[in-house]
């Protein structure tokens, strides 16, 4: 084994892109907040707070998104019975240009902060990096968070909300909400045991309305890499979740994995297919940073705490395009990161 500067180095790297934590960090609390439409959806009992409308008495959608993230982080810290001063670092991000919502949310929290952009993979990216902070001995407690807001995202990426356009049936609905988690070296809760850092995968999809199909190859690439690196079979996990592929992307991942000789159809679900009801007319399901963030901090975390699920793999999936890149006819580069959470 290599000698590190400070002495014996434990090699936590596995295979090509994965890491296995030596002392797995504990997710000691989570919290979330959503908009009214998500509150009427399938997971309403798993949300800490449902806002009455998408503005919540604030002046702009962007302010509302900042409010959601600030509230989610504060609630998670409260639930952990900690104070904000005990948080060594905040890792968070959102979808808006220059991480607008995150920066204004964290401004008032007065803690060391690193902003992350991984589009809709941000929640998993922050969990992954937070776990590395703790296992590396650089912090004792970190808070991670991600947020998105339907109207703020629509106006940045697509059209004004009052414009009378027909959305294609393959398109998804950006979730209004924010999810946060506190990771600690001590305490009770499920542990982040392993992680896989994804590569950018681009299969040439150019339609920004078809993000599920653009991201599916990235998701299956990281999933396959994770299973190979950790020498696990898909059955090792009670459930494998992807972040926001929607109904089209979900089918594509199952197909792509089948081509590699792996059947994941029985223990695989997409967070984007779990939030809205069919009659809510969102078409292919949910998307946005908050899709994986609110499902993980709500439904999945509670399932882990009540032992309904014992081993899960969460894949955050992100479309890394911008309005400029698609107007310049570029395809959509996508990424997926994975964290394994076990009881």
């Amino acid at each position: 084994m290599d000698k590190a500067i400070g002495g014996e180095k434990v090699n936590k790297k596995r295979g090509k892109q994965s890491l296995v934590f030596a002392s797995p960090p504990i997710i000691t609390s989570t919290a979330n907040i959503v908009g009214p439409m998500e509150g009427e959806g399938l997971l309403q009992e798993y949300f800490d707070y449902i806002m009455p409308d998408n503005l919540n008495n604030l002046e702009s959608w962007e302010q509302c998104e900042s409010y959601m993230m600030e509230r989610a982080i504060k609630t998670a810290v409260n639930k952990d019975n900690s104070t904000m001063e005990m948080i060594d670092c905040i890792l968070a991000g959102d979808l808006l240009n220059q991480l607008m919502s995150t920066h204004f949310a964290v401004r008032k929290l007065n803690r060391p902060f690193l902003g992350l952009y991984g589009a809709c993979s941000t929640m998993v990216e922050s969990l992954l990096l937070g776990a590395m902070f703790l296992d590396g001995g650089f912090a004792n407690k970190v808070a991670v968070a991600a947020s998105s807001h339907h109207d703020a995202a629509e106006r940045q990426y697509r059209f004004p909300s009052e414009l009378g356009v027909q959305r294609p049936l393959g398109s998804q609905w950006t979730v209004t909400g924010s999810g946060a988690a506190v990771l600690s070296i001590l305490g009770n809760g499920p542990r982040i045991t392993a992680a896989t850092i994804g590569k950018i995968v681009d299969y040439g999809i150019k339609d920004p309305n078809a993000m599920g199909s653009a991201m599916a190859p990235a998701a299956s690439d990281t999933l396959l890499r994770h299973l190979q690196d950790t020498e696990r079979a898909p059955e090792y996990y009670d459930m494998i979740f992807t972040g926001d592929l929607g109904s089209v992307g979900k089918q594509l991942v199952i197909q792509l994995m089948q081509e590699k000789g792996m059947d994941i159809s029985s223990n695989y679900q997409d967070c984007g297919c779990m939030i809205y009801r069919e009659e809510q007319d969102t078409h292919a399901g949910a998307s946005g940073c908050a899709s994986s963030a609110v499902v993980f901090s709500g439904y999945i975390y509670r399932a882990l705490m009540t032992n309904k699920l014992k081993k899960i793999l969460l894949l955050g999936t992100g479309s890394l395009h911008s309005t400029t890149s698609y107007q310049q006819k570029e395809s959509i580069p996508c990424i997926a990161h994975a964290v394994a959470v076990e009881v």
Partner: protein
Amino acid sequence: MSNEMISKQSKEQLKQQMKQQEYQDKVDILTPKPPLLKNICWAFVVGGLICTFGQYITDYFAMLGLSKKEASSYTTVVLVFLGALFTGLGVYDELGKRAGAGSVIPITGFANSIVAPAMEFKREGYVFGVGAKMFVIAGPVLVYGMITAFIVGVIYWIRQ
């Protein structure tokens, strides 16, 4: 670069293209198709109703004794006002979701395309918000509409 290397590179490119095409085919199979018949019926009925209503207003103005040209100008004003009003009330986007081109093509859709961004960008102020963003969607329509009108005008002028 040697020829061999170039051919190897283009082979790689071809392989990449084939892989992308193969994937695109898979995506096309899984992506839900728009309900064409339903959409066409909605567009026909809604577009037809808006236009019939426009005709009704024109006839009404003509009945009041306005000339044909004046009547159609006033009709435009009324329809643009109604398009803007229903956008402000948050009704027009609900209509557009179902009617598609049926509510985009008539002049009420043009009003919608100007009022919607104006409302959306009010928070960025009246100059850089409303003023600058108002024509974000209608701008291209105006530019190419005027260019087309110019070209048609030139053709008409030459033929005379």
